[in-house]
């Protein structure tokens, strides 16, 4: 069996009385493309935020290559090799595309501020290498020539890709993508699918993504986890998920019998 990049056990995160994520297990195998799906408010992004260190779960633990992440400051999580993008694009708007990628490289740079003032040979070498790498990534995501454009002036699709480039710049082992095709037309979505597939193959990277577009999910996922009301209601290969009764209920609404049963269940449920 392949190694697990992320292993989450019994993760619970609550806000006040609301359990946004409740007792969820998740295993992301190495070099896979795994997806988390679920209706709005199912707790997908909350789970993401737990993995990337934004939130500390109340219960359970998250292991990254067998190393617990609980309580690590966010920037340390990034140091370990987890990078992410955001549902609503969050680039550094005033900075240029290249600068955004350079910020992404930050964890890999060793230069100190004293060296920055002195411009010693080591600093110059490192900075040159960083800039070269940044331009390479810019070419890779297909934004050649737009390096000196402020990020907020880029078109929407380019911003999405730039966000991925910024995440890739830290040379992560795990890339978290939060709705990478949100707001894209079918053609752009196809491009993004090809891009994500290529990413895994050419960069030897594990990808965990949240997505609403079922076409995307079924096309690229090796494994799908379904959340509803903070609980995991299904897990498996795309074909299995498509025929999973609970998942269909969660998306399409249950029949009358199931509805009354679910109501009873909810009444008794702990969360």
């Amino acid at each position, binding site marked *: 069996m392949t190694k697990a990049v992320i292993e989450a056990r019994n993760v619970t995160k609550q806000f006040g009385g609301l359990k946004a994520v409740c007792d969820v297990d998740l295993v992301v195998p190495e070099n896979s493309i795994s997806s988390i799906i679920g209706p709005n408010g199912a707790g997908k992004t909350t789970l993401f935020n737990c993995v*990337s*260190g*934004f939130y500390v779960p109340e219960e359970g633990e998250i292991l990254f290559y067998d190393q617990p992440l609980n309580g690590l*400051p*966010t*920037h340390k*999580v*990034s*140091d370990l090799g987890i*990078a*992410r993008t*955001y549902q609503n694009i*969050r680039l*550094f*708007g*005033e*900075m*240029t595309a*290249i*600068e955004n990628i*350079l*910020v*992404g490289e*930050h*964890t890999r*740079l060793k*230069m*100190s*501020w004293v060296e*920055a*003032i002195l*411009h010693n040979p080591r*600093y110059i070498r490192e*900075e*040159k290498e*960083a*800039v*070269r790498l*940044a*331009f390479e990534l810019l070419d890779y995501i297909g934004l*050649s020539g737009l*390096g*000196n454009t*402020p990020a907020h002036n880029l078109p929407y699709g380019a911003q999405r890709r730039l966000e991925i480039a*910024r995440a890739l710049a*830290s040379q992560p082992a795990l890339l978290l993508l939060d709705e990478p095709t949100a707001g894209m037309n079918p053609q752009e979505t196809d491009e993004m699918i090809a891009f994500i597939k290529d990413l895994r193959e050419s960069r030897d990277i594990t990808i965990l993504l949240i997505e609403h577009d079922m076409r995307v999910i079924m096309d690229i996922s090796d494994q799908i986890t379904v959340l509803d009301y903070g609980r995991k209601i299904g897990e498996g290969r795309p074909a299995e998920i498509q025929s999973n009764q609970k998942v269909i209920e969660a998306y399409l609404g249950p029949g009358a019998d199931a509805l009354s049963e679910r109501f009873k269940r909810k009444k008794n449920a702990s969360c």
Partner: protein
Amino acid sequence: MKTILKNGLRAGITFGIVFIFLLLIGFINVGSTMIGDILGTNVQDQVPVNNLLITLAILGLFTGITAKSGCGECKWWMALLGGLTAGLVSGILAWLAIWITGTLSVGGAELQTYLPNLDPEDMAFLRFYSTPSAAANTYLIYLSLSSLAGAGLAWLLSFKNWFSRGWDTAKTKVSSWFEDKNVSDVIHNPWATAVILAIVGVALYFLPLTWGSYWNYIMGTVAIYILLGLGLNIIVGYSGQLVLGYVAFFATGAYTFALLTAPTPHGIGLNLWLAVGASVVVSTLTGLLLGLPILNLRGDYLAIVTLGFGEIIRILIKSDLLTDITNGPKGVTNVGQPNWFGEVFNDVNYMHLLMLLVLIGLFIAKRLKDSGTGRAWIAIREDQTVAQATGINTYGSKILALLLGAAFAGLAGALFASRNQFTGPEDFTLMVSINVLCIVIVGGMGSLPGVVIGAFVLKGLPELLRELEDYRLLVFGALLVVMMIVRPEGLWPAASTHFKQPSKKQPSEAAVEVKQ
């Protein structure tokens, strides 16, 4: 038609109220005096009434221009109609104000009790030494006509965009000249750069020698504020942390230097250059002391806490508690002055030293900005949460920014105390913090040329406009309001670093071209 009348009405009411306000605080008189000074028409402090007319004309011109700017590309008669409306409305308001105040003062009412700047002499001047109603009519006619003229002028300048088109052509010409192969070769030639730097250096060396001690004093103040601005620019402009108590570091620097070098109250008499170093160190430590507990705060909370900190330092210096150490409200006198080949520093030496330090400061700030450290700061400014998730230790970066900023302030403080040979608690009021913050904002957040320009505009100009002494804050506030409306990004906004794509064949020759 309706819009232009509405715009005219709005401009008229605005400027009418502005006029009444300026009148009541006595600014109309001061303006007339200043115009007399500039034109040299004042005879033995007697201001000719013509200057009052010029003041009114300027006000009216602005009224007209504002009224016209509301209607975009409109016909000439529309523009004039708007200008006339605005002029009439403001004129009527002015008429009322002059008539009421004039009648009152002619009737012997003690206006000065309530409006200390309007003594009877001023009132008579404002009436053109004639009857209230005649004067009021003059105001009405004058404001209307000059507003009409202003609107016409604005229309002419915007006619077929002559003005903006000309400006654009000029800009393109200049930039294409810079991009011209031959010219750009010269500019990027290291020898040419060296020659230009040498010329600037020589000019900077000889200027203080020639322009006299008054100018050295003013420019010295500007230089100290540039240093302060550079420091605060790191904190506010780069890392985006709104620190309102920046004066605290300035004060600790000045007091450290003063106490270590002055004969009283301690008589330590430390070597002056060591004392400068000590000031920088102590200010930096103060920064650490302040930064460690509070830099987790964001935005408004940080601003309020640091605001308090600035005041606490000043009040501590003044307090009975520390009188033995700091000499209390009396301040420290006879602060040490450095020697230069056995001679005590004179104004020229100070100017040279300050210019050198400003250049070094600019150099350091520039290099920091273009490095990974600077990019981390700007990322924090843009989105702290994402910056952290990208692997930036935001807390550490913010502390570093605060420490470097405090170090600049400490250096500036030491020089300030040494140059004045005195330092007292009242040198370090909240106004200093606000002044420096304004320099950073007016110049352009995060922009180094902006800091320099901001310091000249906000510290140099007021020193020159001595007439405005009493109204400095008013002008200051008005300037900030206008700035924020007209040019919110600052006088010289920060330009992003221009990166050149490294050539793929020879990655070793890849160069980063830096353009400010």
